[in-house]
């Protein structure tokens, strides 16, 4: 409970600090705020309680999700470099404040006990994201992306709300506990058909947020158009929060109706895997490739949602963390290189712009490589175990065909991730030493080491999750 209040308060404070503080000190202050709220989150460990009129629930699962989300926020803020040089134009205080507000939304999404709170959390997160996507006001692509995201996002939200309404209509409750109670006290035959439609529509509204196919169309355009730092935020925080909500809705609340939604989610998963991976293979832009990679990773995580084993929640957590660390690092490196390349090459976010990075920036190149290896799921990185746990779940459920597809698709994945490694190490290019801030370096290395440590010693966190 406290982190939600704290983060809202911090956001408001941050807004007003913008009048007096410089960019760099705002960044530090925001970091401190997030660390503070992480500490508050962690203090609830092993305390399970309901709050806010029983509409929210804190337990270890929600705390783990909250911590991962805030960790992602922490990384984004540390990588942000104070949002460019132009102080008057970029309004760092507002962006940091919006980041904090959207974290509040994400936290609501991981601990809701009432469908209204899910909607409120999702909207707080989404509206903040629409704004951040368009924050590069002078860039037409950024504006276009924001509008696209907003249009499609509100469309999906409509479906979510419609789904909630249908579920409410058939179960006479918005509380998860009330829904479960009513469902268990009603004969399955007498449940109205629109309950199933409601479940599916709610699922669709959430699947849109995690960019599962065929609701993924916004992803590449929005990811590419948004400023890279917010793309990083979008692909980590929104995805983690979205998966927490999907798990809560599909597996926890409507796990009993699995036979009604499982076929649909299967097909969505498989289409997501195929579309995400295969489309990524041809991309010239590293940023767009990462967008498709984000789609494909949503597919892998959906696999474990389909399996719905006791270990599913811990697998989602592990995968989210591995994915968050790796994605944050790869976007961060891409961002500094693109900033350096702006004006030097036509498309500063293409693979070509990374050529020869290793020569003068060995640490950036190494971090980028570790991140890509983790995304590709190469052993000794966290990504490998993430995939491994997911596949184990599938095996336990005897779902052989999806696994075959998933494994084939991760082989395709290796192709496009290694394109990045090849351009960094093997292609020749002239990139001088890129100066990065101290915080940037710390964040880069911690994420990198985290990826490796989790890859070597997965049980470290598996025992907590």
């Amino acid at each position, binding site marked *: 409970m406290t982190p939600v209040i704290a983060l809202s308060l911090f956001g408001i404070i941050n807004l007003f600090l913008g009048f007096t503080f410089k960019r760099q000190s705002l960044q530090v202050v925001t970091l401190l705020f997030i660390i503070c709220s992480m500490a508050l989150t962690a203090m609830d460990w092993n305390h399970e309680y309901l709050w806010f009129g029983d509409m929210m629930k804190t337990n270890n699962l929600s705390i783990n999700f909250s911590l991962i989300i805030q960790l992602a926020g922490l990384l984004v803020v540390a990588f942000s470099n104070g949002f460019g040089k132009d102080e008057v134009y970029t309004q760092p205080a507002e962006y940091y404040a919006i980041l904090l507000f959207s974290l509040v939304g994400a936290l609501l999404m991981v601990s809701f006990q009432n469908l209204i709170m899910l909607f409120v959390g999702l909207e707080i997160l989404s509206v903040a994201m629409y704004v951040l996507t368009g924050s590069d006001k002078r860039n037409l692509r950024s504006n276009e992306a924001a509008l696209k995201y907003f249009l499609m996002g509100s469309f999906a939200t409509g*479906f979510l709300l419609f789904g909630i309404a249908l579920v409410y209509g058939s179960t006479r409750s918005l509380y998860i506990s009330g829904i479960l109670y009513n469902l268990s006290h009603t004969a399955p035959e007498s449940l109205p058909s629109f309950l199933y439609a409601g479940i599916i529509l709610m699922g669709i509204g959430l699947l849109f947020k995690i960019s599962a196919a065929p609701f993924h169309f916004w992803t590449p355009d929005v990811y590419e158009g948004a400023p890279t730092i917010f793309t990083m935020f979008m692909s980590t925080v929104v995805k983690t929060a979205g998966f927490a909500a999907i798990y809560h809705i599909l597996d926890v609340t409507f796990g009993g109706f699995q036979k009604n939604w499982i076929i*649909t989610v299967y097909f969505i998963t498989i289409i997501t895997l195929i579309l995400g991976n295969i489309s990524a293979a041809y991309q010239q832009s590293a940023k767009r490739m990462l967008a498709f990679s984000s789609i494909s990773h949503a597919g892998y995580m959906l696999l474990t949602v389909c399996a719905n084993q006791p270990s599913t929640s811990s697998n989602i957590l592990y995968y989210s963390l591995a994915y968050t660390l790796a994605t944050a690092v790869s976007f961060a490196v891409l961002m500094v290189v693109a900033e350096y390349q702006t004006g030097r090459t036509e498309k500063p976010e293409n693979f070509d712009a990374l050529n020869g990075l290793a020569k003068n920036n060995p640490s950036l190149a190494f971090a980028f490589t570790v991140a890509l290896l983790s995304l590709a799921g190469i052993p000794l990185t966290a990504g490998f175990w993430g995939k491994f746990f997911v596949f*184990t779940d599938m095996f336990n459920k005897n779902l052989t065909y999806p696994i075959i597809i998933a494994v084939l698709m991760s082989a395709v994945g290796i192709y496009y991730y290694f394109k990045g490694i090849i351009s960094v190490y093997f292609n020749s290019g002239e990139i001088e030493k890129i100066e990065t801030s101290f915080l940037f370096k710390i964040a880069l290395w911690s994420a990198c080491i985290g990826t490796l440590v989790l890859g070597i010693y997965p049980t470290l966190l598996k025992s907590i999750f």
Partner: protein
Amino acid sequence: MSSILFIPLLPLIGFLINGLSFPKLSNPVAGIIGTIPPLAAFALSLQLFLQFDGNTQIVPLLDWISVGELSIPIAFQIDQLSLLMLLIITGVGTLIHVYSSAYMSHDEGFGKFFAFLNLFVFFMLLLVMGSGFVTLFIGWEGVGLCSYLLIGFWNKKNSYGDAARKAFIMNRIGDLGFLIGIFLLFQEFGTATYQEVFEAIKAGNGSNLGLIAFCLFIGAMGKSAQIPLFTWLPDAMAGPTPVSALIHAATMVTAGIYMVIRANVLFEMSPEVLHFVGWIGLATALLGAAIGLFQNDIKKVLAYSTVSQLGYMFMGLGASAYTASFFHVMTHAFFKALLFLGAGSVIHAMSDEQDIRKMGGLKSQLPITYITFLLGTIAIAGIPPFAGFFSKDEILAHLYHHDIVMWALAIVGSALTSFYMFRVFIVTFHGDFRGTQHQADHLHESPIAMTLPLIVLAVLSVIGGIINLPAFVGGNEFLAHWLNPILPEGSHEALEVHFASLEFLAPLAAAFIPAIFAIQLYGSKKAVPAADAEISGIQKIIYDKFYIDEAYNFLFVKPIQFLSQFFYSFIDFLIIDLLVESTGKFVKSSSNELRKLQSGNIGFYIFMMVAAIAIILAWTLKSWIF
């Protein structure tokens, strides 16, 4: 409990500090940072040793991997065997660190060297402290890596790099066997923790024990340089001399023996494998000693001597004389480290000259080195009452009761050892100086940091025998009693040896007579080993190491090269490439088609979304609609 964790942690910290801050730290600081961890670890080990109450202590560290039914914990096991190994590793390790701080002082990679040494100590400690085969294997691979790094330490020279690679590849062959052994253990018992595995074996569970023991022994063959995987060890002398002393004489190469002793329960259940171990050991001991006879590189002689001594240890294991073998591991650690460090001191004084034909008469310039080297030579030759005598004699005594043929051959090997060691000693230190004038001008005794470890090790080489002094000369057989709890029943029983028997006199003769012969030949007659071109006949065959390297090259390397050429040009090029590339092309072209879906037209996007939702809803509600 916490102090146990610190033992391996300290060297790791030392490695991190030195490794990360190289080359920013100045040499003295790096030396101190590098030397303190093994010293502190030694102190902690000593404390553990003194407080040890006879009960095996397991310190769980972490649950490394637990997936499904497979669970691999990482834990440390402190018992009689690992305590002694700890003392050897940290004790000898500390001395060698001290020695290196002077020996390497002019090297530009000083800090890096210390970082690697610390890393080695860390992995070696992990190897002996692990409570299961997996932890052992992590340490096993880690020391292999450090060995590789340190052999190729002076990597500007290609041949050194080749030597490092050779060591690594030969070890990999052994490691493969070892790994298969561990997998088999998992298959049989579902665990690789010592206690659980040995309990199961004692309870009579598990089949395939012979195969498992054999696979594990293959690993030991690689790491401990036994036939046929021994040729890397002499080449490993390319590394700096302290490395040879620490890794390739005192600690790492004895890991195989440690492993067999640790798994004695398993090996005892498969007598045929033990038999095999014994004969491999014997063959190695003889071959190593024979090649050592006519080598002229001071470090090569010591390397072959190490190979041969390791053979003795395996012979002892083959006769189930675990205590005797371990006794020899300990004394060997003392005197072989001493000899290597002495050789290093000589090489240091001779401005990096290693050929004994160019030395001679060094005793006056290097008095401390001279005396300590002499003590080491006497010890390794097996002359009483030095340490080597007791340990080797104990192995021989067990062999005598085990298999008289092996015993006889071992005596021959012992005689060879005595001969070549005294040969090296006399040629190096006695006679006239045969080096260049430049070398003569620079001859000097090594600094205190180098001579001090020599003196300490010399003392240990002299008195080391008391650790397991046999009862019939009035000793209390400390080691035998100490190791008693972890060894099978009866393997440690004291052997009654009569002073006047053949059993007692033959080893003595094998030690004394060749020594006197060598002193006669090279000392009194002042004979100098012939130059390379003049060597002929059997001597040439021996000098060229029986052409084993060439034979390996012909038997294995060439056919593999041919095969790989075939695979490359036919199978790889024609079949695999075609398959792989067409798959890749298919993916790429389908990617190009799919890409067009992403048109950027938001109307199309929303249309697709709505179409998908319509289909999904229709599918979900089909039973109500239709």
